[in-house]
């Protein structure tokens, strides 16, 4: 089973590509002669009939891209490759000013193609990311898992960074969706996390491994609302730059409604949420505070990014 969900970054790039496609497409349909002139192929009758077709193609894949479906970037890559080949053929026959203009157009298409490739490749990778889920307890049946990971370099020594994480009861100070973590016996912690719709989910987790200055591993005990596990690793950063912190979390996702609820818990951007948690962790250790702006008063927060407040003081 996989945790395949499209990365929001890929989705956003997809939209930009969609806009570019739409723009180019409209231009090609409305003014093929103009496009031919700018591209340096205005001496060819075939070009004039091909350009509106290419324009239609651009518009065709503009639509799914605008809807944020990056997989469709692959159709663009194919399209760009066709353009490049067509232009390559044209190039070998042309010189002078026309050739110069054509070379310019080829360079522009090549640029777009590179971006298309990048988006398509990222949408692929999102589906096959490595899992941290060997940590998950196998007690409950689960269909798939959400794996999230993040890394940051914190400009403090490993012992100090470890000590700050080790204090589980203070995790809510930088973990945005965790409301409370309280002791529940030796090496055990009771977690309360926020879920959508003002609900909370709870679980007790046990620390399964702790090596000071190196690593902490924990996982939920049977009876958890959501089965989950986590590892955080601390390594000295090269060149006296503090500590490399790497976090991996896995949340079991049962089938049906419960599964949907787990997915919702993380909203649109599970990776971003963990990165934000880690950013806040870094800020606390390096600067003693969570950094706030009037646009983002809570400090780094994935769901706030889409819903920024204007940069104006609140009364």
């Amino acid at each position, binding site marked *: 089973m996989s945790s395949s969900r499209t990365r929001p970054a890929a989705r956003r790039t997809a939209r930009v590509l969609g806009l570019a496609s739409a723009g180019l497409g409209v231009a090609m349909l409305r003014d093929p002669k103009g496009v031919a002139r700018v591209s340096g192929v205005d001496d060819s009758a075939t070009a004039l009939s091909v350009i509106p077709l290419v324009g239609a193609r651009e518009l065709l894949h503009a639509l799914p891209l605008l809807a944020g479906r990056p997989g469709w970037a692959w159709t663009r890559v194919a399209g760009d490759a066709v353009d490049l080949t067509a232009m390559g053929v044209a190039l070998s026959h042309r010189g002078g000013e026309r050739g110069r203009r054509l070379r310019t157009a080829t360079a522009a298409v090549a640029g777009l193609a590179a971006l298309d490739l990048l988006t398509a490749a990222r949408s692929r990778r999102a589906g096959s990311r490595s899992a941290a889920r060997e940590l998950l307890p196998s007690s409950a049946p689960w269909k798939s898992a959400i794996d999230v990971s993040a890394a940051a370099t914190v400009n403090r020594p490993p012992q100090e960074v470890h000590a700050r994480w080790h204090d589980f009861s203070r995790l809510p100070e930088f973990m945005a969706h965790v409301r409370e973590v309280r002791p529940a016996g030796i090496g055990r912690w009771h977690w309360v996390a926020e879920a959508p719709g003002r609900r909370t989910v709870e679980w007790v987790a046990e620390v399964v491994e702790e090596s000071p200055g190196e690593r902490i591993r924990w996982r939920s005990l049977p009876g958890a609302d959501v089965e989950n596990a986590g590892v955080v690793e601390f390594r000295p950063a090269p060149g006296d730059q503090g500590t490399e912190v790497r976090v991996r979390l896995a949340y079991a996702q049962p089938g049906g409604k419960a599964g949907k609820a787990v997915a919702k818990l993380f909203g649109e951007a599970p990776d971003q949420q963990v990165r934000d948690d880690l950013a806040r962790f870094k800020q606390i250790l390096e600067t003693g505070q969570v950094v706030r702006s009037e*646009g983002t008063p809570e*400090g780094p927060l994935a769901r706030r990014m889409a819903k920024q407040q*204007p940069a104006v003081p609140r009364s």
Partner: protein
Amino acid sequence: MRATQWMGKNHVEVNEVPDPRLLNDRDAIVKVTSTAICGSDLHLYDGFIPTMKKGDILGHEFMGEVVEVGRGVSNLRVGDRVVVPFPIACGACNACERGLFSVCENSNPNAGMAEKLWGHSPCGIFGYSHLVGGYPGGQAEYARVPFADVGPFKVEDDLTDEQVLFLTDIFPTGYMGAEMCDISPGDVVAVWGAGPVGLFAVASAKMLGAERVVAIDRFGYRLDKAREAGATDVLNYEEVDVLDALNELTAGRGPDGCIDAVGLEATHPTTAVDAYDRAKTAVMAETERPHALREAIMACRSGGTVSVIGVYGGLMDKFPVGSLMNRSLTVRTGQAHVHRYLKPLYEKIRDGEIDPTFLISHTLPLDRAPEGYRMFRDKEDDCTKVVLKP
């Protein structure tokens, strides 16, 4: 308080808004006495920088009097007179420790947004979109200054606001632009753009010992200012072919250092070329009009340095990477690391080595900010730099 708000493309208003409050222990509140409009503000005004929200308070060049300090700020007192660097920097991360304040790793709470567009995030900046933090700016009566124990620089000598205001941004920016050229005796430095940033780059290149400094712009009155700032030669790019002229001037070598002080809204004298990038930016197929940068690369002497202080936002077309690679060019860039230049440049002003007031063309009350924006953008009334008084 009164504050200059971005209300949409080409639309700013001065309105009544709530006074700022401390949000963190290391904050201070500054009562603004002078603030300026920057070429960077024009990129927001003209709608080139994404993630602006209606109502955002503008302005990143400001100074004034400390009226409130958080518990964590021990080096400032109420009543201190300070200039505030435009990059917000924590002073404690790896970047800050290496003096790279404008890429502070902690000061942008919206780093996630910037990472999507740029891979990694730079610092937070006052009044400069949500991509770099969503911080209200200083074209207002009051401003909250985060990490007030790191940024603000105390002015204790008897100098006017006008003399020290540009330490907030454009003097350090121009200076860094020149410094990045590693100028050695005999060097020729060319500066694209004779706006406030370009003018300080010209003056700084001169200070750092350039043999000749060439200023390039299309406005005669700005080129005159460039001569005042120390340019030995000026080129009007609407009248001469810049590449030919620079080759003539340097006997075919090309300038050793080429400074782009124009940024993403450059114009091009050839209508077709200008139209190409205007069309591509209009349909979002690129985000820049990088004429000056392309030209700076083509012009630069083989083995020379291209120093980019003009601002760019996203993706450009037709980047002459072949010229860059095959001719051993070095590209250096950055939002200015203002903090590290405050003291040395302040001393140059205090000791009379430079008088930064020469570029102020207009001083207006804050309420007339909308007019200031329009004049500065349209280069009306020989406008070079607008200072606003709240």
